[in-house]
């Protein structure tokens, strides 16, 4: 029996999918193990539900479908995802959903069955495909802790620092480790973060000023002073001009 999670903000739309799943039960036995009305709810509840397939509305309040799928992709047993949208073909192309499994509303039973079979055989969508399809940057970064996904709002992040195979994500309140390449983060969030050093991105809005660091063993250099955290991070010679301009502008 295939376990299914339904995420859609419209109650009638969820009801309709459940009806269709009921109609299909004879040829394709399924069980609805969870529902969500917003993207955030889906990220919060799906891991506990153990769902194998997620039927995911593309445009939901709180967090859009594509971002939901990206966060869930970090789970050890990530669900297969079938996107559902009421938008027309043109919009589907704009969302670049073509490369992913999707259904258009109103959904037909046969199409739903085919999509469920295909998705459950194919497994979770590839991260790169989702990243490509997401036209804009995520609003959260996620950390998977056992069977729970912790979401960190991007606007709360003060800096991101690469260490060995992880990236440390620092907010005013806490630190997390995430497994995403710093280069990809820099590209996705170019508007939010600026590179101060080969291994470090800081939030543009958090830059308060600079301190001259004593020479010591290294050459003398500048450290960036950030809002809300005591750490001082070194600014490399290469990035100095660009980083300094931020404070001048402000």
């Amino acid at each position: 029996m295939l376990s299914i999670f339904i995420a859609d903000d419209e109650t009638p739309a969820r009801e309709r999918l459940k009806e269709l799943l009921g109609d299909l039960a004879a040829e394709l036995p399924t069980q609805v193990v969870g529902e969500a009305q917003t993207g955030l709810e889906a990220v919060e509840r799906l891991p506990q539900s153990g769902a194998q397939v997620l039927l995911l509305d593309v445009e939901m309040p709180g967090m859009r479908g594509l971002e939901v799928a990206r966060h869930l992709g970090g789970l050890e047993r990530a669900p297969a995802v079938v996107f559902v949208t009421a938008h027309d073909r043109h919009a589907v192309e704009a969302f670049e959903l073509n490369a992913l499994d999707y259904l258009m509303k109103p959904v037909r039973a046969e199409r739903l069955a085919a999509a469920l079979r295909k998705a459950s055989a194919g497994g979770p969508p590839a991260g790169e495909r989702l990243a490509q399809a997401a036209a804009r940057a995520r609003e959260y970064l996620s950390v998977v802790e056992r069977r729970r996904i912790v979401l960190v709002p991007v606007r709360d992040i003060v800096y991101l620092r690469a260490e060995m195979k992880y990236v440390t994500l620092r907010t005013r309140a806490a630190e997390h480790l995430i497994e995403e390449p710093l280069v990809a983060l820099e590209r996705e969030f170019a508007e939010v973060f600026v590179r101060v050093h080969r291994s470090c991105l800081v939030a543009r809005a958090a830059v308060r000023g600079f301190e001259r660091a004593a020479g010591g063993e290294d050459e003398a250099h500048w450290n960036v002073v950030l809002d809300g955290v005591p750490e001082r991070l070194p600014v490399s010679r290469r990035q100095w001009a660009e980083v300094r301009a931020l404070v001048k502008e402000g």
Partner: protein
Amino acid sequence: MSIKQNFTGDALPDFRNLGVVARILLGTNALAFAAVLATAPGWAAAMERFMLLAAALEPGLAVALAALYAVSPSLARLPYWQGGAAVVGIALAVGAVVHSAIAPAGEFLPGLARTLVLTALAALLNLAYLRLLARAYSPALAEARLQALQSRIRPHFLFNSLNAVLSLIRRDPRRAERALEDLADLFRVLMQDNRSFVPLADELALLERYAALEALRLGERLVIEWDRDSAPLDALMPPMVLQPLLENAVYHGVEPGAGQGRVRVRIERRGGRVHVRVENPYIEEHAHRAGNRMALENIRERLQLFFDAEAAIQMHIADGRYIVDMEMPYRTAQA
């Protein structure tokens, strides 16, 4: 009452337009030919005189058209009558130069007056002809624009509504029937010829059908507060100007929000004006959701086609609310 009554005013022809140039060339030559035909004793004589006349006429026309081509953009900025006077002035100047170049000695002065009168007449007739032509075509242009601007419901709304109706068919067939009737009414208006004014009462009925459909799929998330007790039900307005405002409010202010969204619709008459205000929660994260400006621009253009400068639509954001204000003259079928 239809938009055909709104004519936006005369404008000089574009002298860089090939059609305009061709019409002036043909028209002037036709005038010249008619003139010689009327005065000559026979066909052969007429042809001979026309050839003679053409020798003077064609260079003059060519120079005048070249001059108009050069100054056309500057002329276009002048008020119509000044521009027309400038065109006649250019024609007269060219006529005088051509006349002095080819007039036989001793006949210069008496011939000049005749040449100038004929030139001025030809220029005025050309201008009058082109103005009539522009007037004849202008309403067609306005209508074509209006057709293109016809309000369109987002496909997203149609498909979500159909989906909601499908979900009702088994559980609540009666509600499903009503919803399909609402949808039919909405699309009937959407697909009809929307070039004439309709009374506010009709627009309000349509708005209620639309609101019922949105309530069906959004449930408790959508709360619409109506303030329409003093709405002038007989006021005439362009069809489908209210519905896009409400659709916008729902699409940008309620759908993207996780909780309940309050939309307020107020319609009232103040003296000779009808005021409409639609408010919805302003959701910043979705402010860039596409299509908002377009919908407002579309309404603005349609208001302009129907009311010219007498109607206005404006938006602003205050206290976390996105507010659209629309006003138009209060007109009724009797007036």
